């Protein structure tokens, strides 16, 4: 382990801090489609005997879809950060140029996520939360050092943040989350676990705010029911990555134009809950709502 989380206890401390529900990340305005799902009368579908079971069913489906689509982006982005040195070298110019390839790929991942999020509500929620995490890193988590003391990871997050401000990047959630966690030095395994746990926890707090679950039951579920669901989603998706998008160049060798196609990215991100997509995209059509997504 490198960086800020130089010892296990420091990593643990960081995890406690990052799972604090007071963390100013704006996540509380997102229900990730739960509000729309409930209002469309689906809570009682799928054999659920009561509301609590209905919420759990939603959670399982949502986690499956979230892990299969977003986790590969998170992992690919996080590995970019980890590949950079944790601390600054003597030459600040070296540190900045070290970030160039990672920066290009990070922007590509951000764009790739955008092209695969074909739901305007989810896109809106994702960029809002991703940008909030970059801001959180900059204002709260980044070490306070002089410009020349900043390591490549910190510089990379700053570049991403600037690119978002300049309209050159969107700052989607998996990319922003990975940048923040990677710059703090969290391991890939901890980052992946935290990412999925926070999704599940935020769904349960949405359910409480929607009056679908009581706070005690929500925490009972979080401890006893959600844990295996998070483990399951993690186990099936932790090794998935996003393939690099190569420019389609014609006339390469003797290939026909269609032969340059990279084919299916079997280990890559995918949408696995078609109904969830439709319902989440209908969020703005809800007559009365308390969430933004």
């Amino acid at each position: 382990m490198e960086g800020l989380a130089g010892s296990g206890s420091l990593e643990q401390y960081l995890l406690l801090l990052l799972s604090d529900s007071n963390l100013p990340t704006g996540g509380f305005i997102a229900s990730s489609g739960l509000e729309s799902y409930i209002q469309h009368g689906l809570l009682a579908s799928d054999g659920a005997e009561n509301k609590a079971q209905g919420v759990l069913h939603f959670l399982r489906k949502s986690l499956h879809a979230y892990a299969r689509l977003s986790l590969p982006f998170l992992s690919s982005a996080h590995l970019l950060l980890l590949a950079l040195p944790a601390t600054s070298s003597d030459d600040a110019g070296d540190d900045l140029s070290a970030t160039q390839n990672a920066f290009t790929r990070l922007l590509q991942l951000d764009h790739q996520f955008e092209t695969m999020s074909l739901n305007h509500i989810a896109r809106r929620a994702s960029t809002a939360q991703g940008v909030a995490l970059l801001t959180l890193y900059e204002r709260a988590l980044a070490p306070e050092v002089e410009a020349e003391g900043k390591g490549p990871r910190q510089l990379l997050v700053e570049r991403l943040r600037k690119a978002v401000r300049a309209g050159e990047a969107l700052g989607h959630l998996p990319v922003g989350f990975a940048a923040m966690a990677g710059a703090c030095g969290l391991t890939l395994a901890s980052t992946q676990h935290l990412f999925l746990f926070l999704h599940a926890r935020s769904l349960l707090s949405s359910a409480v705010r929607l009056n679908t679950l009581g706070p005690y039951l929500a925490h009972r579920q979080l401890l006893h029911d959600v844990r295996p669901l998070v483990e399951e989603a993690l186990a099936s998706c932790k090794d998935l990555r996003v393939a690099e998008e190569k420019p389609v160049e014609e006339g390469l060798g003797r290939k026909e134009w269609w032969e340059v196609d990279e084919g299916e990215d079997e280990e890559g991100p995918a949408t696995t809950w078609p109904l969830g997509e439709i319902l989440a995209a209908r969020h703005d059509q809800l007559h009365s709502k308390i969430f933004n997504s």
Partner: protein
Amino acid sequence: MLLPTRRLAPGEGVVKLARAGQQAVFETVKFSYPLKLIVPKRHFMDGLNVLYMISYGGGLVAGDQVVMHVEVEKGATLVLLTQGSTKVFKTRPGRFLTATPLPDGTLPTTTRQLLHIKIHPSSTLILLPSPVTCFSKANYAQRQTFDLGDETSNLLLLDWYTSGRMGMKGGGEEWDFTRYRSENEVRVAGRRVAKDVLLLEDEDRGDASPASSASSTPPTDSSASPPPHRTSYLPRVAPYSSYCTLLIRGSLFTPLLQHLSTSFTSITQYKQTNPYSLVWSFSPLEKGGEEVGGIARCAGDSTESVKRWVQEVLKEGGIEKIVGEDLWKNAFSS
């Protein structure tokens, strides 16, 4: 350019449509078994031509692979249709019609369709196939790429699938296929603008992975019949039995985009106690704050209800006018 000596692989098709004066003329239509391409004799609209994609026997079996390369040249409009629904039969180990062994010597168990389409500037592709129906234990993968030359290229694509043979005797099959993967990638001037990858995979059935060759069902000596298998993706598609996606890009389809956008934003959703029989959504695709396309999705309790929705949306969105009344009737007759 296709080398003249090159023979087509099984299931391969090559198509090129060009504009010649008032007409759109096929410069190339080549295909090989089990794929069949048919160009109807009659003329529908100026600058437009039609191609039917058909598989022999009305369906595909495990290991079948269809690969199409289609080019639509400047000023031409191609309407691609299929005849009847695309049926994908279940994996039948050891019996393949056209399967080519994989590098490791095993035979593929996945049925695949690859469609690469190049839509040159100022040309149009309208892809309106019948839905894909995967039978019990079928394993199907489809990848479609659409290379739009620039912002003047137009694309309308319909991608839809059903839960299976619902009408079959003895209760029918519903959401019982092993794997369905559908990938649609849209690029404009070489840059990806949309990639829709849908994956429904039964993670509880051992043969879900296309890489695994042998069936992993354990032998059983119990005479009692096992409880019906419930696929792991079932809760993510239930309670609906048919899904469709419309992907739209290009200024020719502005009326369709406007129609979808207006009807969608006029929806006011009140709290329901039970799900609707049909539910749909529309998300615009923007470039620099300008709406250049969109994606509409729909789920319905039957293939018929989804089909009616598609027909109505496309009609109200001016597609009937673009393809002409006669072709419009043909496109949705099956």
